[in-house]
């Protein structure tokens, strides 16, 4: 049955392209910040790349994505153009949000990324509204909303999932369970071991998946995307993964036990997918290296672009508070 087929080689390669872009971009940003050339709050998604990469290859450009401060991977996977993204990190006028949003608040409607929030859990109810609009228009667009394990303990999660279930909305709730919420372990704040089990509280189909396994992640996403696309309503996906860096840059994450980190590092999704592509013959080492190099070049290009953009003029700060400037 088609349904049971995994992703083909081209799809896996496509996923890998996104994973590599995210990983390289993350590393580049960390270098820029550490070297003092970029001043921005930064929440590294290193280790979680496969989740949005595998989902995104199943989405259309106009499908919606909502994400959080830890959103670089979600943005890039969905196709937010790199130059404007980095210009936004640098607070420049050419940033997608003209420097007003910053890394925590990326919006790029053409890629479907309509909301990046810094408030834990708040993107969940917003995704419902996107799904409602699609449902009314019958345009087939679906909404994916990303959040962490810690977010599954906040009220907005509960209200959002319940409403989506009652209204049978075309929304996919993706819990990127990276085992930590700031400095608190999963068990420290969350009363269940598997967040996927919370789906039953809403009679919502739930999928527990290894978010570091591209094949499995793609399979889970496909099930959810098909359900949403076909009017079958929402799905809760819990993708188990790990946050390889501190909560934000500057957090040495001393609270993470060394063995825990070491065990997860053995399951780093990036080398795993890379090795799989070669082992299964979807690409040669040389082909992959070429992809990686072209991504590296693209990133260098975008960094150079971003850094040479001008800052927004002070007057820009007075625009976009309302649709028209009002005297107040």
């Amino acid at each position: 049955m088609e349904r049971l087929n995994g992703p083909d080689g081209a799809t896996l390669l496509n996923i890998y392209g996104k994973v590599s872009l995210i990983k390289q971009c993350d590393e580049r940003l960390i270098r820029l910040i550490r070297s003092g050339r970029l001043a921005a709050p930064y929440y590294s998604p290193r280790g979680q790349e496969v989740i949005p990469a595998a989902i995104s290859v199943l989405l259309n450009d106009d499908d919606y994505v909502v994400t959080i401060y830890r959103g670089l991977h979600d943005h890039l996977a969905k196709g937010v153009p790199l130059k404007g993204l980095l210009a936004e990190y640098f607070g420049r006028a050419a940033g997608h949000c003209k420097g007003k949003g910053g890394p925590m608040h990326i919006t790029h409607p053409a890629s479907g990324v309509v909301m990046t929030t810094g408030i834990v859990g708040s993107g969940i109810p917003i995704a419902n509204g996107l799904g409602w609009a699609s449902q009314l228009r019958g345009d087939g667009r679906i909404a994916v909303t990303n959040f962490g394990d810690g977010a599954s303990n906040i009220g907005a999660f509960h209200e959002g999932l319940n409403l989506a279930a009652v209204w049978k909305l075309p929304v996919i709730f993706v819990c990127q369970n990276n085992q930590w919420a700031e400095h608190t372990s999963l068990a420290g704040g969350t009363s269940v071991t598997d967040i996927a089990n919370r789906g039953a509280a809403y009679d919502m189909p739930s999928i527990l998946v290894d978010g570091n396994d591209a094949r499995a992640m793609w399979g889970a996403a496909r099930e959810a995307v098909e359900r949403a696309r076909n009017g079958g309503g929402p799905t809760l996906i819990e993708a188990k993964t790990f946050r390889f860096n501190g909560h934000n840059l500057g957090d040495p994450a001393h609270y993470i036990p060394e063995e825990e980190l070491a065990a997860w590092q053995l399951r780093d999704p990036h080398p795993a997918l890379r090795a799989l592509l070669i082992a299964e013959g979807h690409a040669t080492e040389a082909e992959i290296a070429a992809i990686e190099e072209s991504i590296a070049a693209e990133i260098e290009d975008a960094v150079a672009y971003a850094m040479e953009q001008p800052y927004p003029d002070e007057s820009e700060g007075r625009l976009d508070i309302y649709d028209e400037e009002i005297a107040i």
Partner: protein
Amino acid sequence: MTTGTENRADERTVTCADAVQEALAEAMERDDSVIVLGEDVADLQGGGIRGCTQGLSTRFGDGRVRSTPISEQAIIGAAVGAAIAGMRPVAEIMLMNFITVAMDQIVNHAAKTRYMSGGQASVPLTIRTMTGAGAGTGGQHSDMLEAWLAHVPGLKIAVPSTAADYKALLTACIFDDNPCIFIENTLQLKSKGSLIANEKPLPLGKARIVRSGSDVTLISYGRPMIDAEKVAASLGDQGLSVELIDLRTIVPFDEETILNSVAKTGRAVVLHEAVKRFGVGAEIASRIHEELFADLKKPVLRLGMPYTPVPFSSALEKPILWNADKIEAAIRSLM
């Protein structure tokens, strides 16, 4: 709320609740993107606990008019999302005190999304909510919290005082491209006033000079306007000329009308139902002082609720509310 004259041919008498319902029905008729959500708003649930949304789900379908679970964050969140997707949602928060569970969606998301996205996203939603003291509903069902929302750049806030404004201002909110808060009064919704057919649309941000006068300016909005109007009329009969301004919109508020008036009268009283301290009156009074310091004959006087939660017992609730006597005394104290 009374016109003082016989109805004109194109005039009808309706309740404020009817006026809200008409505004919604006409907006939904005119524009498919207008959608409605909130607790009990669909007809299966009675069309709103005050009947403000009656008939809408039957007429426009269960897709566009949806009752929700008791989940105010989910209500405003869904409105934010739908608005970003290009709809014009009208969300009802049954009572204003319940915005306290949804302030994040209102303040961090509805109000800031246009700005934080550099203008790429727009959030043309309207939040209808109801409140007001004087009905013996106690501490958690009576608060006027417009001052909070006014302190949040990105929102617009309208507070109607007549049936006609219930309709016109709500219509203006729905078709405004910014997130708007529309504050209805629990006690006023059942009271009547007249609507004129094909009245031209009302812009947000324009006050109404209810009565012109030369001795003192009285500025108010919402339900206290009823007493304000009575006092202005009765003082007028006694030869004290009160210019009465109905603010209508709190953000943006019509500074021009206020300042022109006070420049003329040299005296002003600002009256609102909300707690006086740190209330909207403080901003208005400050603006008048800042701009018209030299012209003022007396300091601007503020009337509002004393610094207290709303008590249940009528014996305690009544004394803390405005009334005609207090308004008159305030005005007289300036003369």
